[in-house]
């Protein structure tokens, strides 16, 4: 079922706010990892705490989230992660 197909992407960040090395942080400076689930319907991303020594992401340490619905927001300009009405979906997606 095409709806069940998922593409996973990820991107590292050195901090919660943009800084000089936000684009290409060295491994030792990575503090946050953004993990994305992309389906035919939506893109859901959680930016979570990351330990570069242990290579461990801490999914209970959520720094920020993104949720865009492809049909209503194909350009991904309106992040509805914090909108309450999607709480159910978010709960189901949280690892």
């Amino acid at each position, binding site marked *: 079922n*095409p709806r069940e197909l998922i593409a996973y992407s990820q991107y590292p960040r050195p901090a919660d706010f943009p800084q000089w090395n936000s684009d290409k942080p060295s*491994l030792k400076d990575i503090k946050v990892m953004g993990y994305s689930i992309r389906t035919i319907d939506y893109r859901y991303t959680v930016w979570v705490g990351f330990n570069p020594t242990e290579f461990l992401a801490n999914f209970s340490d959520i720094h920020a989230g*993104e949720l865009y619905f492809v049909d209503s927001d194909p350009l991904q300009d309106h992040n509805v992660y914090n909108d309450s009405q999607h709480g159910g979906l978010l709960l189901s997606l949280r690892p």
Partner: protein
Amino acid sequence: TDALNILLIIVDDLRPSLGCYGDKLVRSPNIDQLASHSIVFENAFAQQAVCAPSRVSFLTGRRPDTTRLYDFNSYWRVHSGNFSTIPQYFKENGYVTMSVGKVFHPGISSNHSDDYPYSWSFPPYHPSSEKYENTKTCKGQDGKLHANLLCPVDVADVPEGTLPDKQSTEEAIRLLEKMKTSVSPFFLAVGYHKPHIPFRYPKEFQKLYPLENMTLAPDPHVPDSLPPVAYNPWMDIREREDVQALNISVPYGPIPVDFQRKIRQSYFASVSYLDTQVGHLLSALDDLRLAHNTIIAFTSDHGWALGEHGEWAKYSNFDVTTRVPLMFYVPGKTALLPAAGEKLFPYQDPFDPASELMGAGRRTEDLVELVSLFPTLAGLAGMPVPPWCPIPSFHVELCREGHNLQRYLQLHDLEEDPYLFG
């Protein structure tokens, strides 16, 4: 039956701004022609939108959390596991494997050797003119030479009188001519540098994209709801002299709108220049009568933001940076075998308005990932598809973390397909 050859074309920083992906503006007739004979994946995504991590991921068939390469500073065989690569697997199965241009990201992440000799039968080829890419070879409005982001050049004036991708095409064609008489099948990976920055391309390609026709991105402002951690401050392009001169504020800019148009103009011009290189390569494959027994895979390592969300370059999780072109031409499967003397890939001139509008080819909107390239190429070549990886798989040399996409090509031979045959 003889083993099929493999031609893998990897284009650096190419987003699906191509005619065959519905882009009405971009002139890419040669890539569109390839697409018309291929299966085209309209929703293919990279696992990380930056060069080395994406390339090591899809060339080993492992996700970044397994390669543990999120930057440019480690070699997976030392750092995380002795994972086999696509070319290595083909080499171990009797193929002559060759690398031209930028396939692995150069430097530490490929052991300063493009992973030779593990992956390649010969030392990989790198175009000699690459060393001038980031030097002062761009003529500024002051008539002096600068290291600019926007760098349309008169090829006759640049050092060595050529450009890296032109040299790569020439070398790839030379290798195809050599392999024509080889008893072994070949796996040739050609890595083109453009449209990676700097946008250094033959200046005539600017004519295809008059500045007055250049629009801004449909959503050129940083969205209010975007978490700051998600935003990519495009530090790399800020280092270029022409961008520095604009004194753009960090981190949110914005870039002056006329310069935004110029960036978009030069990106598209670089894409059309790249398209001509692909065209010369594929028409040579045709001329050497290798199109009937060579699988062609075409993709890129990640996309590139052209002002969407107020961002430029890659370095994010947005679709504009993770979505990539991905297509496979499989002789006799995605297109009829060329009849004697028939050309499947005659060179198409992007400056010729009459260059044929291409058929759409076969397409699927299903979501797929670049990490599927390894199992898919193995399957298409008739080799055993590596098994799924256990978790964790650091100790496993050969396994896969992506789906085999062959089911999208599980096309019976076209001769049996009256619709297509018709």
